[in-house]
């Protein structure tokens, strides 16, 4: 992927300001896209195209939440096994998926062109990769201008939020997901959240090594290591887990909990793209 050159920027800006709405490409019906998982679905929707079908659409509504799925978007079955016969029947113009799901690509390619988002393949930092992949997907879908605008708007939104933060004292924070009452998944190096924190000039309280997806699974007691740092906890947390966490004597006595520094934010897909980055930064500013 070519980096963002000045020429591309100018072309994009020109396209935006000259009113792409009149572009004949947009009077044509939008491409029919089917998404095999949520990261590419998020990107497709962010580019202004409502996918005809998304795998595990209920899960998308709960765990990705935004940008919202369009009404009438079909469920493709599970993300592990998207329904091929339904895909065949829908005859999409493009199928999108993400790297690393271990799915054999051949059956999808027989149905429609397949665009895969090579996310978290270790070649680039997730945020940079999200930018590049958004642009790539944009050109694949004939939405170059929207893709460029999305890249710019995300950067702008993040720098605006960074300005909001600049007045406050830099208090380190840890981003966690809680799935049960004894363990947390904490996001660190190699995660999209880390990149966003860096862009916001915020310090991640969790500096220990993480796995290739940018997180570690820990016992809750290891949160002692972050002291009184702020804890940003991602929704959704199952209600019974919440209750049990509140009952835990260890949790209640953790320095960060005692200091009242735990905040819950709405769902953000940790493996998402630019929309997830904006959501995260926005919720962080409100937390």
């Amino acid at each position, binding site marked *: 992927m070519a980096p963002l050159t000045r020429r591309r920027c100018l072309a994009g800006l020109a396209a935006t300001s000259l009113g792409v709405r009149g572009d004949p490409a947009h009077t044509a019906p939008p491409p029919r896209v089917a998404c095999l998982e949520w990261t590419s679905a998020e990107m497709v929707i962010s580019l202004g195209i409502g996918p005809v079908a998304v795998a595990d659409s209920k899960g998308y509504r709960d765990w990705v939440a935004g940008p919202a799925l369009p009404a009438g978007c079909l469920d493709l079955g*599970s993300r*592990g096994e998207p329904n091929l016969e339904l895909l065949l029947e829908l005859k999409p113009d493009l199928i999108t998926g993400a790297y*690393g799901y271990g799915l054999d690509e051949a059956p999808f390619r027989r149905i429609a062109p397949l665009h895969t988002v090579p996310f978290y393949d270790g070649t680039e930092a997730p945020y940079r990769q999200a930018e590049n992949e958004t642009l790539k997907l944009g050109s694949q879908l004939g939405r170059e201008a929207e893709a460029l605008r999305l890249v710019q708007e995300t950067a702008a939104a993040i720098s605006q939020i960074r300005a909001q933060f600049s007045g406050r004292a830099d208090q380190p924070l840890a981003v966690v997901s809680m799935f*049960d009452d*004894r363990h947390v998944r904490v996001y660190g190096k190699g995660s999209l959240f880390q990149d966003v924190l860096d862009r916001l000039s915020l310090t991640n309280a969790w500096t220990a090594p993480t796995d290739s997806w940018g997180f570690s*699974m820990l*016992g809750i007691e290891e949160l002692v290591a972050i002291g009184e740092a702020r804890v940003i906890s991602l929704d959704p947390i199952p209600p019974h887990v919440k209750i*049990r966490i509140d*009952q835990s004597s260890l949790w209640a006595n*953790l320095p960060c909990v005692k200091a009242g520094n735990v905040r819950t934010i709405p769902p953000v897909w940790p493996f998402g793209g630019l929309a997830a980055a904006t959501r995260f930064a926005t919720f962080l500013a409100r937390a």
Partner: protein
Amino acid sequence: MTIMQSTAGHRARFKAGMLVALVGVPAVLAAYLTAAGLLRLLPADMWWQSLGATDFADPRQLLYRHAFLPRLAISLLAGAALGLTGTLLQQLLRNPLAEPTTIGTNAGATVALTIATLYAPWMLEQGREWVALAGGALSTLAVLALARGRSFSPVAIIISGLVVSLTCSSASALLMAANREYSEELFIWQSGSLIQNGDAVVLGFAPWLAMAGIAAFLLLRPLRLLDLSDEGAESLGTKPVVTRLAGMTVAVALSSMVVAAVGVISFVALAAPALVRLAGARTLRQRMIWAPLAGAMLLWLTDRLVQVLPFTSEIPAGVATAFLGAPLLFLLLPKLRTSPDRDGTMLASVRRRSGWAYLLLGLVAMALLLCAALVVGRGATGWHVASAAELADLQPLRAPRIVVAVCAGMMLGVVGTLMQRMTGNPMAAPEVLGISGGASLGILLLFVATSDVNRPAMIAAGLVGALVSLAMVSPAGRQQPLAPDRLLLSGVAVATMASAFSAVMLASGDPRLDTLIGWLSGSTYRATAADATIAAVAATALLAIVPLTSRWLEILPLGEAASRGLGLGLFRVRVVLLVLISVPTTIATLVIGPLSFVGLMAPHLARMLGLRRALPQLFASAMLGGMMLVSVDWAGRMLIFPWQIPAGLLAALVGGPYFMVLMWKGRQ
């Protein structure tokens, strides 16, 4: 006289020494690791002081009081509970393989907790104990009810336990696959982590252990009489059935509590009693004292070891016990005395039929079924019978799945028949041999080792895993020329290791796991034309070769002595059969995942249809197995369209209860 007494005294002292060493060595190691870990946390002079008056402002003391000590305590308590449970169950069932997993308790507790977590989380607000107990008790009751017609004979209980466990665990796997992102908690919990977040779990668990311990010792005398035959025990004034029920109640309650408190901890309940018996604890009383101690020390040591291992994410103790326990079992196998309880009349004896007419009928049914599976389907607008033109498009999607299903089913049916006839053990199934377990282990390791997982790599890794496990199983079994029971035990060890490893993978939260879950649950989704070809060739070859072994298969169930007497070269025969078992199992596992139920059920069904001679049973099992997998694969694609239920899960979910009904009807 005095000389004899003194040698007896020496022997007793020697035995006591072994037992003390068995408990003491792990204890010393664990204590050393604990002290070392604690020193890093808190200076030694504060240990005692901080116990009573904890200063929560000091994070070190907080960790000491609410994480370190509870974790230490729960590892000891859970280990002791498992040691006691295992001893009780092994005594009750007269089976050295008995543990909470074998009698269906763990699977029942797990499925109950899975359902509650996903669909009725409010039930867990008061704690998991009651939900787990209800589930564990229900599944164990089902097992006992099924075995009741045979006065709870050990083999009947083990088989019922296996059937109920498979059904329950496929139900929970299915629920988790359908609620992928909500299952993270379940994955973590299932893998048996001892991490504590306060002392609530310990305080809740300790009274249960105390009550169970008291109850167990009150039952000591009647339990001891179970060593006699049931008639002998009755003549001494006890009722074996009552004893078993009472003992089971204690064991079920205790193991459900362990599951509720910390998840499934494998192998401790199996290993602790086996170890103390090997170390010389002969009487039940000795075993009931030493096995809980050994269990506590083993789990304590394991839990300390996982904390010093250098991994990014800590391995849960429940998984580690399986890894440590499985090799231990291999070491023990040559010494373990197995007493196979060949219960040939386990299943309803039906009028014997020659069966060739049945086979013809089966062939027609199978052809019809294959056509239906290919043509009938569902789409966005509803049910749909494909036209010839549409079939051209659909065929590349449907045909490989159908071919793979039917071939894998046929191979598993044949393999199951071979194994059950060869071992004389009605619970023998391809999975029990550990081949499918080994193949899944290979593929799981591939997932850990590389981020680029594709089909050829999966096949290669699976094949390597299967071959390695075959190599591991064979020497262990060969100590006494490939003795069937040892083979089964080795297989169980490999299978447990594989399932423990898949549990830790599932708990890691890697987003690629969807593929893995699909494969582990026996989905045909990834079947390619190449897979179909491989499976078809293998199934055809197997069906062509296997009639040549029919004479062996008639003779082998008669037992070793009879077989030798009839001039069978047992070693050669077993090696040939092993190859005929392992190669098709590997291929079936590679294309459709570690399915096991079909290989267990098809031979039984064939026998229930009255096909009891080797050759008709083989072919009937092949057809039944093939038809079973094709039907469940088709149903799995249709039932919750566009979602798909993996064929293996559905086979177990549908086949399990059906099997139970048959057992129930045939119990008179």
